[in-house]
């Protein structure tokens, strides 16, 4: 059986949920399909401090409020519903999850990004982590290596130090860390965070309950060994567009190409949030994308009626 809706939004992060709120308020029958749980990457932020109206709020708490708002407008939400295939015909769009097939007059793609995993094989998998809020507490009084020198890595290192982690070595493959200067200063002021730039994690060798982290100096090729109790990885995200390859225009990085009204190259298919090719990826810019995509989808559906 195929279920039909006016608008299907693929992705329940801030872009998709904002689009859902705007579309529902325009009286569309809206379904949100989310591969995990609603909230997207914001769920992983222990503290959000740049969202207007909250000087500081936990990411999951913020996104629960957004979900509650959408549900209050009768938006249908299905979680753990990963869209595996898309068909974008002129008069009807079809998406399929492992359990169900859905039709819609219009689609908004807000599938976001997913974390990039450490590109090495190791038997020490139990000690490789991607979420400090989830796993940080186990490392109180212990030493860690963090991979990646961006904002996430420095923010998370401060969170981990506040939890009581004894020391952290951050490994960054570029010449300098890209994290905001103010965050780097805060991190170094703790006296517990060191950085290796121009370096890469080459191997992890489990040894007596710890890991011997082999760090290669990229210019010279020489290696250093760091003993650590765990490794946290923050090396960025990739666009979640694999199921869209060949179905819609993507740029060389796999991001959806959309114009400033969030139109893709397929009529009636719009895109919003981190998944589109753009310079700034913030909660607020994703909300703007979601708003525009929803208003354009409403216009498209009304014009086709």
């Amino acid at each position: 059986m195929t279920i039909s809706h006016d608008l299907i939004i693929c992705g329940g992060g801030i872009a998709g949920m904002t689009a859902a709120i705007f579309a529902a308020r325009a009286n569309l029958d809206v379904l949100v399909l989310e591969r995990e749980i609603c909230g997207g990457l914001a769920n992983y932020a222990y503290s959000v401090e740049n969202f207007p109206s909250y000087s500081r709020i936990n990411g999951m708490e913020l996104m629960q409020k957004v979900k509650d708002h959408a549900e209050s407008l009768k938006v249908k939400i299905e979680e753990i519903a990963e869209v595996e295939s898309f068909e974008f015909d002129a008069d009807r769009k079809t998406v399929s999850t492992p359990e169900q097939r859905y039709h819609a007059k219009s689609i908004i793609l807000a599938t976001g990004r997913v974390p990039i995993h450490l590109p090495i094989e190791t038997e020490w998998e139990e000690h490789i982590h991607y979420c400090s809020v989830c796993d940080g507490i186990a490392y109180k009084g212990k030493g860690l290596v963090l991979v990646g020198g961006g904002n996430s890595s420095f923010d998370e290192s401060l969170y981990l130090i506040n939890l009581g982690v004894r020391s952290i070595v951050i490994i960054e493959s570029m010449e300098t860390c890209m994290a905001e200067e103010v965050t780097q200063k805060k991190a170094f002021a703790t006296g517990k965070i060191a950085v290796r730039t121009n370096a890469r994690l080459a191997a992890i060798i489990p040894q007596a309950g710890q890991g011997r982290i082999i760090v290669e100096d990229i210019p010279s090729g020489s290696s250093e060994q760091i003993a650590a109790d765990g490794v946290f990885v923050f090396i960025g995200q990739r666009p979640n567009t694999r199921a869209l390859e060949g179905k819609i225009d993507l740029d060389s990085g796999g991001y959806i190409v959309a114009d400033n009204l969030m139109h893709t190259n397929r009529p009636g298919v719009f895109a919003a949030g981190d998944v589109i090719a753009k310079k700034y990826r913030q909660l607020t810019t994703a909300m703007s994308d979601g708003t525009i995509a929803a208003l354009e989808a409403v216009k498209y559906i009304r014009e086709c009626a």
Partner: protein
Amino acid sequence: MLDKMTILTADSFNGFIGSRDFLLLIFKNNCPLCKVMMAVIEKCLPAFPDLVVAGVNSEENPIILTDLDVSKVPTVLIYKNGVPSARRSGVMRPAELSALISKSQAQG
């Protein structure tokens, strides 16, 4: 939180296990991956209507984590006759969890 999940503590843990078959989820509050895993379990439950689901809050019961040698949440353990027969850390897709449960249930 899963409606069907029995929350265990260090005091109730051993008494609950007995010789039971059940799924144990080690989780933490405010852990997004744990919430995802709870949703995955919920999605799989209709296919395993008799499955007993229990949970341990890792922050409130660190002794259980030490006993089970768990350092990562979410971790799922499948108990067969009161003994862990399978375990997996991190988020699984529904098909992966269903396969893990089915395999464990098929063991003698």
